[in-house]
């Protein structure tokens, strides 16, 4: 194994209080910290965690394709590894959930013979289940990127919960200066094929500050496009029906049928 290494960590969502001891140790053991946060204040906090700490935020240019931005980030992470340094890369939330460059950087580093690993962290989804008080195990829960969901049109099960991410950049492959909400009505139309328009859905945003409350807006599905969406809004669609138990299977598994 070559000298350089890459450790990818997540900061969690809440600034300063969701960084795991394992992730903190990875920062301390590194030669440099490269990081990406969702807001400028968290960026500032990260700058203070390591004497050689650099934000990756400068890679974002409005109007540029996100794929190109992510490719630059991958190279920003792997280049110092090739030069023999121990790199720690920190992404907000969980570094392996909705983070393309982290997976690709690890793949590329390993392919070139360097040690590379990812440490788990608290994701926005983890915060959502805690803040909304829902357990995905109760009904099952499907989760999609909103654009992917519309493009690939997976079969929906109204008896399961549904999570849709990145609803403010639907259909836009570029980095944007403002939320793109003009395609939210397309999402509403698609969901209305399965759910009643008066079905209550929840617009959610986890709080990045330990003293602030999350944003939780309950609106009828049909009014989603008019809801006050924030750039980091996620849509939670609760189940609209109850799935029956397969009695034949219940008997087969040894459950009572009384």
């Amino acid at each position, binding site marked *: 194994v070559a000298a350089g290494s890459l450790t990818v960590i997540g900061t969690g969502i809440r600034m300063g209080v969701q960084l795991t001891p394992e992730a903190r140790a990875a920062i301390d053991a590194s030669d440099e910290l490269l990081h990406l946060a969702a807001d400028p204040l968290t960026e500032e906090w990260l700058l203070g965690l390591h004497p050689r700490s650099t934000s990756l935020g400068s890679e974002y240019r*409005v109007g540029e394709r*996100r794929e190109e931005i992510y490719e630059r980030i991958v190279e920003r992470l792997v280049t110092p590894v090739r030069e023999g340094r121990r790199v720690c890369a920190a992404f907000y939330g969980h570094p392996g959930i909705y983070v393309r460059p982290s997976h690709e950087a690890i793949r590329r580093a390993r392919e070139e013979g360097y040690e590379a690993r990812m440490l788990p962290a608290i994701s926005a989804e983890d915060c959502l289940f805690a803040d909304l008080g829902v357990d995905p195990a109760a009904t099952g829960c499907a989760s999609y*990127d909103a654009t992917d969901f519309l493009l690939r049109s997976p079969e929906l099960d109204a008896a399961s919960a549904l999570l849709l991410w990145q609803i403010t950049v639907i259909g836009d492959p570029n980095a944007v200066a403002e939320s793109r909400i003009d395609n939210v009505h397309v999402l509403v139309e698609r969901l209305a094929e399965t759910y009643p328009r008066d079905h209550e859905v929840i617009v959610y945003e986890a709080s990045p*500050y*330990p*003293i602030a409350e*999350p944003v939780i807006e309950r609106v009828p599905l049909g009014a989603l496009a008019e809801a006050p969406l924030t750039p*980091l809004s996620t849509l939670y669609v609760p189940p609209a029906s109850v799935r029956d138990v397969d009695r034949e299977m219940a008997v087969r598994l040894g459950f009572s049928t009384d």
Partner: protein
Amino acid sequence: MTVAEFLLALARDSELLLRFAEEPERVVKESGLGETQRKLLLSGNLRELRVKIKAEVEIDGEMVAFHTVYAPHPVPPPPPPPKE
């Protein structure tokens, strides 16, 4: 001290965070922040905090709406038109 600086202090100092959890009004008062800022911090209103922080924190260069780190995988190209 600004609202942003107070939030950073909470993130960096777990003892301060603990004290805030126990006695939020006292801790905010000790910070020397003005009444409007204190009310904002105690409200826990994320939308309003974001607006305030945006005004306080200097941002270099152009600001994107948020740092998305995921884009859907490339969409397959449409099939070629049928040959005539």
